[in-house]
Structures are given as C-alpha cells and as structure tokens.
C-alpha cells in the first residue's frame, strides 16, 4: 500500500504521464508482449502443430491481395503456416531469449562488477582484463563458435531441442562485460561514501555491504542498461537466426522467419520477410524509446545536446 502511494506521487510516474512518446512506446510494448505471450489463445493457428499445416497452403498472399484467403490474414509462409500466428509465436521466443539473455548478463555482470569494484587491486585488474578480452570477441563470433561446437558434439536434433537455453547462454556470456563495467564504475563511486564506511565500522561482511548497501544505490545505471541490452539481445538472436545459427525453422523466432522468407523474396512472396521484419523493428524501436526515457528520468544530470 505504502509502496503504491509512493509510486503514485513519484516523479517517475509524473514524467511518464507527461511524455507521449514514453506512453505510446509503453502501450505498444505492452500490447506486443501480451499478444506474444497470449499467442496460444489468440493466434488463429498453431504453427507448432504439424497436423494442421497443409503444404498446399504455402505462399498465400495477405488477405487484401489477389489470391489471399480469409483464413490467413497476413498470408502464409513457404511451408503453409499462417504468418500472423507464426509471428506471434516467434515474437514470444524472441522476447524470452531477449529477457533471458539480459538476465543472464545482469547476473554475471553484477556479481563480477561488484567484486571488481569493491575488492579493487588484483581482483579488479583480473576481472576487467577478462572483460576486455570478452569484449574483443564480437557477440556473433562467440555465438557462431559455440553453436558450431555444440552442434558438432550433440547433433542437430539436440540443438533444436535446446536452442532457447543455448541462445540465452551464448548471448548472456558474450555481453556480460557491459554490465560488469557499468556496475564497477558505479561501485567505485559509491564505496567511497560514508554510509559504506559506516557499514564497515559496523562489521558487516563484505558480501552484505555489496548487496544490501552498494547495489541498491547502483540500480539506476543498471536499469538503463537493461532496456538497451534487451533490445540488443533480441537483435543478436535475430541476427544469429538469420545466419541459420539460432532458432530452428520448426520453432521459428522473428529472425529465423525473416531468414526463411529471404529465399522467396525475389519470387514475389515479400510478406514472409516483410511482416516479421516490421514487427522486429517496431519491437526494438519501442524498447529503445522506453530505455531512452528511463535514462532521462533516472539521470536528470544528463542533458541531451
């Protein structure tokens, strides 16, 4: 109750209600998220159920074009799956991977960043050099490497089953230094403050000082980074799927849908690539706009020139 009251009167809510871009982005994001996670209920078809797919329905154009069918509003892809349903299911996978990978990055990055910033000295040097090394490999390279190895060892069938956790892991591992550096920088600023010294005089263990005292005061840069990183992870996943290293075609994400349609784009079936592409752009755009707004609210000292 108290928390709700504080939220009602907070600057956060006030600035949200006075920023049409933020409200619009939030509305679209909420709508997309609901649509994605409600896909089993609201989607007209189930693209995972192979018994309902008929290859004879393949490459049907959207309903408003010549040859379109009422049954398939946005047309069908090369395998006869309804585009709208496949996109909703695909967006669900994209969102799960995006949020999951960001959580993974955040957990690794926050723990290592806190340690590096608070302990300092050799621990700090070691962890930050590790982060530098990690950053010098691009996300795609790490992912290509690992998925090639994974597929070679466990086989393609196992990869298709474990694709989601695998992608979360790969994108999580490849991008943790972003968090570690942000957290470290803010820990370095916080740990000099007197409330941390007071906690040390109290004899509190280092782990508790880091979690209970320093971390809550470093949350705003972490929040800002998270919004950017979710969008980034979704894009990484799309890029990997587009390259054929991400989600398999039987369980397509937005990226693999774009990829699968790419082969048909010159035969005139542009909708297979176009619609998932537009949806992906919209999704990332609203997340980034929201992230921008969060950054403005939490970092009032940051002026945009």
């Amino acid at each position, binding site marked *: 109750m108290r928390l709700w009251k504080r939220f009602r009167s907070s600057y956060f809510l006030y600035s949200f209600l006075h920023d049409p871009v933020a409200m619009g982005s939030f509305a679209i994001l909420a709508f997309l998220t609901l649509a994605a996670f409600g896909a089993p209920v609201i989607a007209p078809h189930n693209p995972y159920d192979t018994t309902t797919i008929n290859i004879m329905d393949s490459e049907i154009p959207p309903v408003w074009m010549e040859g379109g069918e009422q049954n398939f509003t946005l047309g069908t892809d090369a395998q006869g799956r309804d585009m709208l349903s496949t996109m909703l299911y695909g967006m669900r996978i994209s969102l799960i991977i995006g949020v999951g990978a960001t959580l993974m990055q955040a957990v690794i990055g926050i723990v290592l960043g806190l340690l590096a910033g608070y302990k300092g000295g050799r621990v700090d040097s070691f962890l930050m050099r590790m982060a530098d090394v990690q950053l010098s490999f691009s996300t795609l390279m790490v992912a290509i490497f690992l998925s090639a190895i994974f597929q070679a060892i466990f086989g393609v069938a196992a990869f298709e089953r474990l694709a989601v956790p695998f992608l979360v892991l790969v994108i999580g591992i490849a991008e943790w230094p972003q968090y570690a550096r942000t957290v470290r920088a803010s820990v370095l600023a916080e740990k000099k403050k*007197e*409330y941390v010294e*007071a906690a040390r*005089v*109290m*004899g*509190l263990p280092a782990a508790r000082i880091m979690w209970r005292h320093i971390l*809550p*005061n470093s949350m705003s840069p972490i929040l800002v980074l998270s919004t950017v990183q979710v969008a980034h992870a979704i894009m990484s996943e799309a890029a990997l799927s587009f390259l054929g290293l991400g989600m398999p075609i039987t369980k397509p994400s937005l990226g693999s849908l774009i990829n699968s349609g790419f082969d048909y784009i010159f035969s005139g079936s542009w909708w297979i690539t176009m619609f998932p592409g537009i949806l992906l752009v919209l999704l990332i755009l609203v997340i980034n706009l929201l992230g921008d707004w969060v950054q403005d609210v939490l970092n009032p000292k940051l002026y945009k020139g």
Partner: protein
Amino acid sequence: MTDSKSLVRISNVVKHFDISGGFLDRISFSGGRPSLTTTTVKALNDVSLDITQGEILSVVGESGCGKSTLGRTVLGLYPPTSGEIAFRDTRIDNLSARQMLPYRRKMQMVFQDPYASLNPRMTVRQILEEPTSFHFPDLSRSQVQDKVAEVMRQVGVDPAWAGRYPHEFSGGQRQRISIARALMVDPEFIVADEPISALDVSIQAQILNLIMDCQERFGLTYMFITHDLSVVEHISTRVAVMYLGTLCELADKKNLYGEPQHPYSRALLSAIPRLGSKGFSHMRLKGEVPTPINLPPGCVFHTRCPFTEERCRREIPALRTLPNGSRAACHALEEGRI
C-alpha cells in the same frame, strides 16, 4: 597515565598511503636506467596516544594533518602500516574480521557529512535495525523495534518517523540519526569525525549537547576530531594537537588553552579570534605546510617554527612530559629555550 584506565591505546602508529598508481605510472628513468618508484603519502608518523575511559579527547589540527586518518585507523577502516592499536589492553589491529566483531560493537563512528553517511535507499528503521539484529541475533523482532524506538527517543527524533527515508530529514536530524545508529550497538567508544562541521551553527550546539548528553548517560568515551577550537574548548577533557601526521602536544584542556607549550599549539591558539581584540595580534607562521609526500627531516614543524635550531633539522623530537603536566614533542621546550 596508568594503563588500567586507558580504554584505547594507540602505540607508534604509522600509516602510509601508496599513491604511485599503476605499473606504467611508476616507471621513471634516473641516470639512464629505468626504475620503479613508489610515492607514499605519510599520513601518520609514529603517533602514540592513550584514550582514557570516560573522557572526550579532541584531536585538532589543520586540514590534511591526519586527524581523520587517525580516527579511521583506530577503528580498523585502514590497517596501520606499523604500530599497534589496543582496546582494553587487547591488540585489535591484527585481528581477522570475525575476531574483530566483538570490538566492532564496542567502537563506533559518527561521520562528518550527514548527507552521505546514511544509506539513501534504506528507511531510518532499516538503518537502525541492521546493526542491532546483526550484532544481537538473539533479540526478537519486537525487541529490536523497541530498541530502535528507545534510541530514537534518546537522540530526539520521533520514533513515528522511523518509516521515512533519510532525504526527508534535515541535516541536524540526520546527524541525530547517525548518532543513533552508533548508539544502537551499546558502544563504549565513539570516534566522532567532525560531526558538526557540516551543520548550521544554530544546529551545531544542539548536536554538541546531544553528544555530551550521551556521554553522561551511557558513560561513553569519545575521540572527537575537529578543527573548531571553540568547540574543543567547550567539550574536551584533553586535547591532542596534530601537525603533518605527527602529534605535537597532548594536554589537558585547561593547560592547552591556558599555556600552550608547543610552538605550533601557540600559533594555533593565538589564531582564535577574540571578541573585542583590536588588530591582528596572532603569532604568524612563515611559509606553507610541507607536503606529506616529502616530509622534512627532523621535526616536521622546523620549516615554519620561529625557534628552529640545528638539532630540529636533524632529530625527530619525542613526546615528553613537561612540568605543567602537558606532553609535547619539541627540542626547544626540552632544552628550555622557550
């Protein structure tokens, strides 16, 4: 001073801070050969001090003379480079964090900046409950809450405000909460690091009275770090004067204010403005404070002292008891030149 009465004993404490930076910053070329240099700030040089049970020992000195470093070293926030710190005749500077815990409870600190010393993301209740439930895990939740309310009342903050965040309080109230946090664990010794410097003058008196009130009520011993000499005169039992990381003079308040012995103390005290005095009658020192990175040899004060002789440039003076009971580190005093 007898040993039995001393609560905290600081013996020959030296604290040097390494500021030489990373490997590349340390490489220097001397005579054509590369060598590694270390730059250290000599914050404390061989400081020995006994703090007697029940007293308020003030530590005074100008900015950068090592007062705060001394306070923080005593509490173990900085490990001393050499020397010993003892609490009730038990050496505490070499204990592990776990062994140190019972002493953490006995020794607390009040900080200078009431705006930085309270965690902005915790309510006052959380700030005050944390040390209690950490050091007294046997207490039930309601006992801890009772204690919070009791201590809040003692420091003059309404317990009904416990659910608020520090930013909702004024500077003086925050300093009261900061004192309450130190009192939560029933300490015997409190280091107060310029607790009133950041406050409005009208609030300073209230906080000073609270500090003295707590001393009477709980039998506390204070190490009171400040640069405000009129405050020192008001509250201290004894005063330690520091200059450039060295203890110059340790005297009873009356002695120091009546007849300061060490040349630096004389200069310092003559600089207190007096109501009704005309012109500048204070003793002027020449030059600037030398940097603690390159300490002058011999007596650290010799570059500015009006009584400097050859011996002062060579030999570091030891703290000696003078006829009036004060203790001062000065060759000129020892030789009877001043």
